[in-house]
């Protein structure tokens, strides 16, 4: 007796909902085992990780703040991965968006500026991320260079550039030599949504972006082009949809959205440039995209869930002295389980008797 994979004839709708839920459940079980291994009470740890961050209004605001960059980036990556284009350098595009946008904030600092500054910063952020994303896209489209490696290498380059700026020419002269820029002026920071709190309009932007992307993917010709490029590349070519054009488009969109996430993060929760502006949002967003089943609305929900792991990880470190790396382990496990469960959308397990090969 052995077990084999057999292609499904049907694709029941309930399975595509059940698969991410099963993945989350399996991650929780694996997480409980991991906590037990670390000598912590598994149930208490799970509670700190996944329940406590949902405790009150403040905590929920924090969750939305953390989810904002994840959702923005993951929506862009959804388009990429749907078209079978592998942008894994969103972290670098995020950094470049933050650098481009912050340039304006610093250039107008201390001058009589108006309400145009913040919108202009956001536009610059989009352009910065887009420019950085178009480098691997152009190399891929024009010269056939593998986009996976180039987009990733550019992450390191972007981070070093930010480090150089913050320690060098953009350092706050009155900052006691700390490697950080001046704090942005009110005109250059994201407005807060509800009176006193941390939730800023960035979250509203992220939700709007996800909704618009979902609509365009499902109803527009471009959305069809992108999906076709991934699912049936030959058919896409016969239909006259250029592969190169799709590559450029999805990289421009995902780079732009990652850049937007970067400038929103800097102009929002951080309020200034620092050597490190992201705890790996660009990489975690890859998991968000897959957990959300490569669907913009799914990314919205999955973004909130992964934001939970960031906050839960910080809480667990403070409350239970659990190392922060557990967050990464969780995220890695989650992606494994998501990918594993997705197999059962396409295949079913079947037990077959051992055939002696003649």
């Amino acid at each position, binding site marked *: 007796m052995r077990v*084999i*994979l057999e*292609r499904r004839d049907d694709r029941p709708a309930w399975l595509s909902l059940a698969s991410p839920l099963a993945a989350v459940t399996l991650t929780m079980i694996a997480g409980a085992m991991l906590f037990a291994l*670390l000598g912590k009470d598994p149930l208490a740890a799970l509670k700190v990780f996944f329940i406590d961050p949902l405790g009150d209004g403040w905590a929920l605001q924090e969750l939305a703040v953390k989810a904002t960059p994840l959702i923005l980036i993951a929506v862009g990556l959804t388009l990429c*991965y749907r078209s079978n284009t*592998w942008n*894994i350098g969103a972290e670098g595009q995020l950094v470049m968006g933050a650098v481009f946008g912050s340039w304006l904030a610093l250039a107008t600092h201390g001058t009589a500026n108006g309400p145009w500054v913040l919108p202009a910063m956001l536009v610059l952020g989009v352009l910065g991320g887009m420019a950085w994303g178009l480098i691997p896209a152009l*190399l891929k489209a024009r*010269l*056939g*260079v*593998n986009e*996976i*490696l*180039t987009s*990733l*290498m*550019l992450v*390191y*380059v972007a981070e*070093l*550039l930010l*480090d*150089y700026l913050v320690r*060098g020419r953009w350092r706050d002269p009155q900052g006691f030599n700390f490697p950080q820029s001046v704090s942005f002026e009110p005109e250059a920071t994201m407005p807060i949504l509800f009176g006193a709190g941390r939730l800023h309009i960035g979250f509203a932007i992220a939700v709007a972006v996800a909704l618009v992307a979902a609509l365009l993917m499902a109803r527009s010709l471009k959305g069809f082009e992108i999906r076709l490029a991934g699912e049936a590349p030959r058919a896409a070519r016969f239909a006259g949809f250029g592969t190169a054009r799709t590559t450029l488009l999805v990289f421009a969109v995902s780079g732009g959205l990652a850049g937007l996430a970067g400038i929103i993060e800097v102009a929002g929760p951080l309020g200034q440039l620092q050597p490190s502006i992201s705890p790996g949002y660009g*990489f975690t967003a*890859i*998991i968000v995209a*897959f957990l959300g089943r490569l669907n913009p609305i799914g990314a919205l929900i999955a973004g909130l869930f992964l934001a939970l792991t960031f906050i839960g990880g910080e809480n667990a470190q403070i409350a239970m002295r659990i*190392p*922060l*790396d*557990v*967050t*990464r*382990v*969780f*995220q*890695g*496990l989650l*992606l*494994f389980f998501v*990918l*594993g469960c*997705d*197999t059962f959308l396409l*295949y079913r397990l079947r037990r*077959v008797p051992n*055939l002696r*090969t003649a």
Partner: protein
Amino acid sequence: MGMTEAILLTIITAATPLLIAALGELVVERSGVLNLGVEGMMIVGAASGFAAAILTGSTVIGILAGIGAGMILAAIFAALALGLAANQVATGLALTILGLGVSGLIGSEFVGARRDALAKIDLPWLSDLPVVGKILFGQDPLVYVSVLLAVGVWWFLWKTRAGLVLRAVGESHGAAHALGYSVLKIRFLAVLFGGGCAGLAGAYLSLAYTPFWSPGMTAGRGWIALAIVVFASWLPLRAVIGAYLFGGVTVLQLHAQARGWGIPSQAMSALPYLATILVLVLISVRRRGDAQAPAALGTPFVPDR
């Protein structure tokens, strides 16, 4: 010891982990599997190798622990990418994310711990030869292992029947399956070999190259190893050239920073990554497309009985 000699020595130690990891991945890719988790397997190898060496006091056990850890992660990858036919790119990324986290957990107790680097061999007469003595006959044992590994992989892939079968699986899994070869078993063994190599490369970093553990110490070397495989056109002996080239860039960058030529240190640190992009571009321009990549690279295989 002269300056040139010192530089050549450091190039060799910088190139060795890249070479070992690249050779492992080369075999994996020749079997038609793309495992992007090299960085993750490498860093877990570095953490567990160092931890085991500190706990047991034995470098050999440390090295074996590094290899074992790499193979365990590779087995997880294989279970998903081969057993469940999951998307290989995404599974490899998951492996890297998981590996970075796991290495942090393993290594957290050992941050700041130090031990002597893997001893260099010292041959009574040969090591004292002028110029070539230290470079050819005074390295640590793993440097020789890496070169032997390159020759061994070349011999295996091109001079043995098993190597031919492995390459056939990588070119056309359907044809190999029809001939009665077990595609998944062969790929599983290749992936395990790749994991062992990545783990060994990591252990080399924490036991011979630095020698200590610090979080994130692989700093993209796993990704550079992947680029070396492309640079080498999937040929083992060319991987040696690639690894030494990148080792050279790493060392050049360190020396330039030490001299302080008025170039920002960040610009010098970016050099290996920029060099990787440049090399990938040059290779693509020369080759036009991926003509030399194994034809079945990255495509999952599900046997239909």
